[in-house]
């Protein structure tokens, strides 16, 4: 499958946007401007971007506690995202959600979620809605290796497979769930092996290779749009940072493992791939792209900082819809 250089550059830019956004999210968190908890996606950008590049605005996705990357890849507004992290009125959730709860239903981003595996059945319901709509839209479920051991994974995929729902289940196997290595809690090496229990295709893909992810996702999306039902795609990847951005937390992962994966950075890889193709990306263009991304992120920060905090009266609003 060939991905046009334009598209590759777009993907690279999105990946870099995720990275720069999160680098700031971490800083802002450590500075005390961003509250609660921040889980960074850094190192895994190729998954969200590779998958979402195959989707249209009508398609839906759902995310996890590690949600910034999925939001950005689906086209969320950096300003409203950052404002949400800053707890401002202009944020996606009016300051009520924070990092773990960003959603944008307008663009089909059905939300980050503080519950491991909590979104899997929700997006499966969106897949049912898409099937009932009959317009060929699909729904994509992002979830971790840890989530693949939880009941909702099983219940939802079984239903999606039985009903041939247009859902793509994308496991981000970053080998760890907080401080528990996947090999200690996953009875099989490959989450994709579980597809056999539902009679659906299960694919393993290098989750640090955006183009490989794109290719696998394209096939799964086409399969789903054609009424073929769900696919389980396992993306082998890794987070560069600790589980959250809290300063004092333990990280049980071996240094050598971290370094080996850092060397396989998905952004470096895609940039190198483009650079390796005559005329597709020069060092200067790459630097300019990054500068552009940085200024977009800075604009988002400025927007967030300039936005008012919500009024305390708002705590009683939106408990119920009209």
């Amino acid at each position, binding site marked *: 499958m060939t991905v046009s250089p334009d598209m590759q550059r777009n993907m690279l830019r999105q990946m870099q946007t995720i990275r720069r956004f999160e680098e700031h999210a971490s800083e802002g968190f450590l500075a005390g401007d961003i509250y609660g908890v921040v889980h960074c996606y850094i190192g895994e950008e190729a998954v969200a971007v590779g998958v979402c590049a195959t989707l249209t605005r009508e398609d*839906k996705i*759902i995310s996890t506690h590690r949600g910034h990357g999925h939001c950005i890849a689906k086209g969320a507004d950096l300003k409203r995202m950052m404002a949400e992290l800053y707890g401002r009125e202009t*944020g*996606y*959730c*009016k*300051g*009520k*959600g924070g990092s773990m*709860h960003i*959603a*944008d*239903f*307008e663009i089909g981003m*059905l*939300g980050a*979620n*503080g*519950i491991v595996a*909590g*979104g*899997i*059945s*929700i*997006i*499966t*319901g*969106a*897949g*049912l*809605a*898409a099937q*009932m*709509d009959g317009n060929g839209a699909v*729904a994509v479920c992002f979830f971790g290796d840890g989530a693949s051991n939880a*009941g*909702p994974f099983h*219940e*939802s995929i*079984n*239903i999606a497979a*039985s009903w041939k729902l247009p859902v793509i289940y994308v496991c981000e196997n970053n080998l760890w769930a907080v401080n528990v290595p996947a090999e200690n809690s996953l009875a099989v090496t490959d989450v994709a092996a579980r597809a056999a229990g539902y009679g659906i295709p299960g694919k393993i893909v290098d989750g640090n290779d955006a183009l490989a992810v794109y290719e696998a996702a394209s096939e799964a999306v086409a399969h789903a749009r054609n009424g073929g039902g769900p696919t389980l795609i396992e993306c082998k990847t890794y987070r560069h940072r600790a589980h959250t951005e809290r300063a004092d937390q333990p990280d049980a992962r071996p240094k050598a493992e971290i370094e080996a994966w850092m060397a396989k950075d998905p952004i470096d890889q895609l940039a190198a791939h483009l650079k390796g193709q005559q005329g597709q990306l020069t060092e200067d263009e790459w630097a300019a792209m990054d500068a552009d991304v940085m200024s977009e992120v800075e604009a988002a920060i400025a927007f967030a900082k300039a936005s008012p905090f919500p009024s305390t009266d708002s705590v009683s*609003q*939106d*408990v*119920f*819809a*009209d």
Partner: protein
Amino acid sequence: MPREITYLDAITEAIAEEMRRDEKIFHLSTDAPGALLKEFGPSRVRQTPITESALTGMAIGAAGSGYRPIVDWRLVTFSFVAMDQIVNQAAKIHYMFGGQQKFPILFRTTVGGGTRRAAQHSQSPYSMFMNLAGLRQALPSTPYDVKGLTKAAIRDNNPVVMFESGRLGGLQGEVPDEDYTIPFGQADVKREGTDVTVVALAWLVHEALAAAETLAKEGISVEVIDPRSLVPMDAETIRRSVQKTGRLVVADEAGPTCSAAAEIISLATEDAATFKALQAPPARVCAFQVPIPYAPHLEDHVFPDRNRIIDGIRTVIGS
């Protein structure tokens, strides 16, 4: 033209009428209701695997995508496998996401005992749901009320939990032909009286009415209030009644601890005017705080009934 139909038929009618009106409504449950399945077919009335948690989540996702799902958990027993989706998702999602999307969902579920099916299948845990913010809830006691509240629930743009009393499924009652809804948050005075207020829920409404009838012969005038809707709860109607009668008994099939009955007593006593009017301690006439046993005479012993309500009333009026 009012007709006599059963409580269960009233629910089915409500759902069928709404499904005819709005094709975005569909029904999910592990054993599809025959009448609905027959009329609307298997794509709108879906028989599902035994996965109440997934169904609950799927309803949220479908509601967030423009549908108006109805999920029947069937026995409230089974809602507990879905509790994460109920507590952590359905109740909070509208608020947590800043109100950006509406989630119109009706969750149906049967509560109560009397069926000799022991501890797991005889529960009345509505107060566990009432403790949550973000879910409208009702517990109707008559065919008329259940139809009107079910229709209101389906038209509501929020997740609603409709607690259907298992004991009342076969109860006959008048229901008009015309379309009507009953708004959430309006209690119904099922019988007027002046000496004591009995706030009763579901089956206990009927037991309270029977108790009132018995006591009327002794010249004791009992007012029976049915909150109907649990969230929001119509504190005003209850307080007004207690201010009139000066006495309060709450009758409920659930155990007392942290129950709807405890909430009703708190709503009454913490209100200055009502507190002032209260002439005797309020009383909870509830099930014993135990799991429900199987053997019929044990089960019957655990639940309150008209006789225990009469005893409760006698205590609060000091006779």
